[in-house]
């Protein structure tokens, strides 16, 4: 077998391996249950999902983009948005730190983080 083929194969396997490793490692950070909502890079709202009641509310971004966020049974998700691609709406309800909900057009990020003080975060 060509030496270059081996190198290429090894490189591709390494990419996949390290990506999966990174996914697994970030998946382990599940101890947090505080949903942090960032708009335009600034923390605007934190909600403790373990105690929060079911509710819906709307976050308005600085560019006027609006996202309606629903909290249901300890999970959080975006149910309505005025962005063109609706990727944030199609992302399922989240309850752990594996995947954040990101709405790039409205610059909105929802992440589940370990419980902490609201003002300790400087972004």
């Amino acid at each position, binding site marked *: 077998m060509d030496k*270059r*083929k081996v190198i*290429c194969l090894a*490189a*591709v396997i390494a*990419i*996949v391996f*390290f*990506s*999966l490793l*990174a*996914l697994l490692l*970030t998946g382990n950070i599940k101890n947090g249950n505080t949903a942090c909502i*960032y708009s335009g*890079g600034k923390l605007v709202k934190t909600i403790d999902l373990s105690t929060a009641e079911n509710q819906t509310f709307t976050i308005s971004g600085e560019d006027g983009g609006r996202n309606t966020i629903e909290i249901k049974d300890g999970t959080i998700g975006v149910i309505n948005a005025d962005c063109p*691609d609706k*990727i944030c709406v*199609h*992302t*399922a309800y989240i309850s752990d730190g594996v*995947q*954040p909900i*990101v709405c*790039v057009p409205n*610059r909105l*990020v929802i*992440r589940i983080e370990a419980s902490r003080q609201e003002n300790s975060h400087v*972004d």
Partner: protein
Amino acid sequence: MSIRKLVFAALLTALSLTLFIIESMIPPVLPVPGFRIGLAYLPVLFSVYIGGNWSLYDTALILISRILLSALTSGNLTALLFSSAGGILSFTAMALTHRFIKEPWGAFPAGIFSAVMHNIGQISAAALIYTASVFAYLPVLAVASVITGTFIAASVWLIIRKPNKIINKIKNIK
């Protein structure tokens, strides 16, 4: 560059731009921002691996024109930043792979590496503009781009692996 070759390079650019637009109409397969199949890179990778009188200079020309034209058609300046950051890195990956592997099968590593590099470039640009938290998407996008890169490379490889009359004609355009 002769008129004949210029016309063919323009044809590849038009093909790339058309695939780019068609691709944006396909609903997203994964709910991850920035995920694309990368069909627009098919003519680009083709121009790298066809060989003959085609050089990396022509590829760069096709890629730059496609990026500028796609920004014009979508009317989005942020998209221009994203696709040029991805374009520069993926072109570097393709050029480096081609430097060491000139046979048709080199399309596979070139396709995969360029797809991964494209995502790294795009995410870095997004992290600059938005928040660094978009890097959380990199592992998902890297695995996805290995799959899509293989798909694009397989398409190119199927076209060029057995030289026929048409391919030879394109190859030898002066």
